[in-house]
């Protein structure tokens, strides 16, 4: 009665976002009647490569693969190998590299360009609403060499071209608050009076930046506008209005939709060329009967920076709290 096993390759669930991803995938798989096997690596692409080899060598027949590379480009070899097995391959989380289209069935997951763009929109919106003059600002980005950081920065910079002035792009050494704080606490005082906004690529870093701003006598949301653009664990700073706003990026739904995409392919047997931004409806997740596109993006619905807005925000039947504060 099981429709087969889906094998999911992900980095380690010591990162809670990845834990959420697994949860979403598992719940959707159960709903669709698949067994699921999650193979974790410790943020190590070469480890994942050998796990892929190992899995392929097992000769198991699987219903399909969900592949979340740690290092997108470095994992292309694994992706090819998976594709050569004949089973459908759904890529998730990392926007596939141009030219690899033949190696995967469909992409289902977040869009980092979109995330950067959404952040830009939130920021511009906040500046407009506050009637503040936003010009010079800085991007505090993910560590140097992390491709999601490149993509989000590109999406952001494209969207603010001509409207805002990016004076500095500083990478952190990690994705969490402590690293964000370390960088923000140094560049904010050094460029005091100059920076009018900060884009930090996620809310963990944004919260830390807001804290650093306050400690330097700047009121976030008034003297400086800070946006992370993806909710990431702690929504305190969004609710309090310190962060200009956020967008729901849900690990749960990302895993869920990757699994859904696989299910769709098995049932429908075809992929429609082109991109599809799944609709960010509040109440019900998109139907399994919708067509599967080559690119299926997780919606990043923006959430305004107030408790009320936060409470009201929902995506596909789950509240922002459930989705963001994992």
């Amino acid at each position, binding site marked *: 009665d099981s429709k087969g096993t889906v094998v999911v390759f992900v980095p380690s669930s010591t990162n809670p976002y990845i834990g959420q991803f697994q949860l979403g995938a598992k719940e959707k798989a159960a709903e669709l009647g698949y067994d699921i096997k999650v193979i974790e690596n410790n943020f190590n692409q070469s480890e994942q490569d050998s796990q892929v080899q190992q899995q392929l060598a097992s000769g198991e027949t699987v219903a399909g693969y969900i592949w979340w590379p740690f290092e997108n480009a*470095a994992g*292309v070899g694994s992706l090819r190998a998976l594709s050569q097995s004949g089973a459908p391959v759904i890529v998730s989380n990392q926007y596939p590299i141009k030219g690899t289209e033949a190696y995967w069935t469909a992409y289902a997951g977040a869009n980092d360009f979109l995330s950067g763009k959404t952040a830009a929109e939130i920021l511009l919106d906040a500046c407009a609403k506050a009637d503040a003059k936003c010009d010079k600002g800085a991007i505090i980005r993910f560590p140097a060499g992390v491709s999601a950081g490149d993509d989000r920065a590109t999406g952001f910079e494209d969207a603010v071209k001509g409207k805002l002035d990016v004076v500095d792009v500083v990478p952190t050494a990690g994705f969490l608050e402590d690293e964000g704080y370390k960088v923000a606490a140094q560049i904010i005082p050094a460029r005091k009076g100059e920076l009018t906004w900060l884009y930090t690529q996620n809310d963990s870093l944004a919260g830390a930046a807001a804290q650093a701003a306050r400690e330097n006598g700047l009121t976030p949301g008034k003297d400086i506008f800070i946006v992370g653009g993806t909710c990431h664990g702690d929504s305190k700073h969004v609710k309090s209005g310190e962060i200009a706003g956020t967008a729901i990026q849900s690990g749960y739904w990302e895993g869920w939709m990757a699994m859904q995409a696989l299910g769709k392919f098995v049932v429908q047997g075809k992929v429609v060329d082109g991109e599809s931004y799944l609709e960010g409806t509040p109440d019900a997740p998109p139907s399994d009967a919708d067509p599967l596109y080559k690119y299926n993006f997780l919606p990043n619905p923006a959430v305004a920076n107030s408790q009320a807005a936060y409470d009201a925000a929902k995506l596909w039947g789950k509240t922002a709290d459930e989705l963001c504060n994992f």
Partner: protein
Amino acid sequence: MTSETKSNLARLGLMIVVYLILAARIPSYYSQPGIAALLDSAVLAGIIAIGVGLTMIAGEMDLSVGSMAAFAGILSIQLFPYGMVPALLIVVLFCGLLGALQGYCIYKLNISSMVFTIGTLIALRGLTLVVSNEKTVLIPFENIAETDFLSAKFFVFSIPSATLLVLVLLVDFVSRRTLWGREIFAIGGGRGEARAAGVSIRRPIVVAFSISAALAGLAGSLLSFRTGSASPLGFEAVLLEAVTACLIGGIALAGGRGSILGVLIGLFTIRFLVSGIAALGAPFWMQSLATGALLIFVIIAEAAIGYVTRRRRMARALTA
């Protein structure tokens, strides 16, 4: 039977036990492609562990191998247009030279290599980021098929895994049967004694570090070619895995003891364990816990056996 053979047999036994326990639950452990994949999975840490092991035998430790491999990976992908073999040779040679330089500095300053290579570990990683412009570098997709031969399997071997095995045999041979190798053992076993006996200290240190760096370069290069890309942040975890393989394989941190074949055994013990736990779908922390537990088990067992043999030897000396 010498005590070293005995200890290697014991380690081999442990490896087989780990293998059997996991093979009982994972069918791919005894299929031909499965074994091929296991061999492949050991290539990176394996090639690097040979070099790290050699420096440990010399009573030193090269901590910079992960950064060196990442550096080599970036360089070799950037040199890909000149052909894979020339790129590989140039990179390995260059890394070997860097390693020799590092060894020479360590010898000349008479400084602890653990201290020195922490510096190069950081600096080389930074240099890698600079050289790569902080971006992953790729082989153009139209050329990616040119690297397929690296993944092709002949029976259970691929070119990289065959390279690993050949290197193990080669370096094991060099370390066991040549003057240079024996010097490495000699200075690791007793630097002052070896010097008094007329052994040069410079040569073995330079040789060990340049082999270690060249092998790290080779591993980084091969792996990057195989995947068609290299990341400036890559290969960060490989140092600890390589050191763990050496320790489980019986290389003493104090130097002078152990063998490269032992490293291979240690390596596969970890690979069997880690791959197996991952393949069972367990979360990463189980792999982490299991590796830690295995390492603690092995070193405590070693300490206990060492204590008993010392006791016995002393007793024998007294009755004699």
